[in-house]
């Protein structure tokens, strides 16, 4: 091989190497800000969801733990005390005037008081809470299964998602909200919890009522739930991605 070809090839290889490095470091950062790229990367969640639906049975249970496993201090995350005058007034009177409104695609919309919910058959489950940040805490949660609560309002067949609207104000004048599909809503570890570790749910953990899921990450488990609405699509709400954190770029499917 002649010296010139060799040098040229060397330059080409060096160029390719440098180009690949720059592409990786700079390009990926630029791509991260591109809505189209975000859409493509984010779409992998639907493949992940399909794969997990295939591998994991509809009612497969998340592991349950013993009292000895309960975290001494359960880490509280997100809103710890909603800056909302209406909520603060409800809290001041022990949530006796609080009502959970359930409507949307249901045959019999209704409002439930905390006593109504406490009178329902309850589950007590010691489960692991996994935060999207990476940490895990074990706690004991008590409350009715969401499917039993929904049975009281008789969901219509068109209902595909359960929207949960919350009392905690977030950036930009919006309130926290979330959505889960009917399959998740029907899971036996999907609870509307009003107790943590045998005590009335403290405000920092979402009093008076929060969602508990066995098989998804913490940000799906809306705290300070005020209003449940059954819908056919979550697109009309917020910025259309199904939840407060989803609107900030997090995946709607939080099973991973």
């Amino acid at each position, binding site marked *: 091989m002649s010296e010139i070809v060799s040098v040229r090839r060397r330059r080409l290889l060096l160029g390719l190497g440098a180009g690949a490095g720059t592409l990786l470091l700079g390009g990926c950062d630029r791509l991260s800000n591109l809505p189209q790229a975000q859409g493509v990367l984010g779409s992998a969640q639907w493949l992940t969801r399909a794969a997990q639906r295939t591998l994991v049975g509809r009612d497969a249970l998340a592991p349950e733990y013993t009292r000895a496993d309960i975290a001494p201090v359960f880490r509280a995350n997100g809103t710890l005390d909603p800056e909302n005058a209406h909520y603060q007034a409800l809290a001041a009177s022990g949530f006796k005037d609080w009502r959970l409104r359930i409507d949307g695609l249901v045959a019999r919309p209704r409002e439930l008081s905390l006593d109504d919910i406490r009178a329902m058959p309850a589950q007590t489950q010691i489960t692991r809470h996994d935060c*999207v940040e990476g940490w895990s805490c074990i706690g004991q949660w008590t409350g009715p299964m969401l499917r039993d609560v929904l049975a009281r309002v008789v969901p219509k067949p068109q209902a595909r998602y359960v929207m949960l609207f919350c009392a905690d104000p977030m950036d930009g004048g919006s309130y926290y909200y979330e959505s889960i599909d009917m399959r998740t809503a029907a899971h036996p570890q999907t609870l509307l919890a009003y107790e943590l570790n045998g005590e009335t749910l403290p405000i920092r953990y979402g009093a008076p009522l929060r969602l508990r899921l066995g098989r998804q990450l913490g940000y799906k488990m809306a705290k300070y739930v005020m209003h449940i609405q059954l819908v056919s699509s979550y697109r009309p709400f917020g910025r259309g991605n199904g939840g407060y954190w989803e609107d*900030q770029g997090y995946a709607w499917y939080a099973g*991973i």
Partner: protein
Amino acid sequence: MEPATATLPAPERAVGGRIFILRHSRAVRILHWVNFLTLAIMLMSGLQIFNAHPALYWGTSSDFPRPILSMGAMEDNQGHTWGVTTVGSHTFVTTGVLGWSKGSDGTYVERGFPTWATLPGPRWLAMGRAWHFFFAWILVLNGAVYVTLGILSGHLRRDLWPTRVDWQRLGHTLIEHLRLRFPRGDEARRYNGIQKLSYLFIVFVVAPLTVLTGLTMSPTMDAGWPWLLAIFDGRQSARSLHFICAMTLLAFFLVHIAMVVLSGLWNNLRSMITGRYAIDTTPTGTGRSTHE
């Protein structure tokens, strides 16, 4: 003598004391570079995810006061801030790299790994996860194609499975490597024992462990495959093991790069791009398989 690949090139040409062989098949070359890009993205987006809670624990849940590894910033009584990394009961000052480093705007911020090591550079967990969980599919798919083709074509058995001679010469090969003397002539046609064992360890031990510990962090997978939690001793252990697997892959990558450079950068690089690998047939040499 065994050929290095399934398909030998048209008659080996001797050029100035060197002959060129087809070192890597087209499939291996494509899979190699896809793997390289994907692993780089996985590592860097993984560090972004780690940075959201730069601490590791053992067991099921996070025992916050007792991490096995943690990174953060500490202020001394003179108001000076240090980056600190704690491993078990040992604390190391890692200012500028781990715990306390320059953010994207040039000012120091508290973060686990520095901006140049994470994808995206700035703190952005949502996009880190988006990159990670997209390219996880590419990585697994690429790996599955590699193993399937490797078995079907005989590449794994022929080129990567150690022979009895490889085992017998393992000590010798190790010493030669440490002295930075690499095989030449006919010996350079095949992987040596150390290479074969390293590649097999990565492909059949570290890579599957990385995938399985990754899956164990998924709360849905834990419901479907509870044995994952049993074999890795809980979700937080799995997260720590996932991190250790990633660091093992990084260490393999760094040694791999060093070996590529030391044993003939251009020849190695050419063989992984065009497939052509030069073998020095002159009786004397510096120990390098080629010098252009």
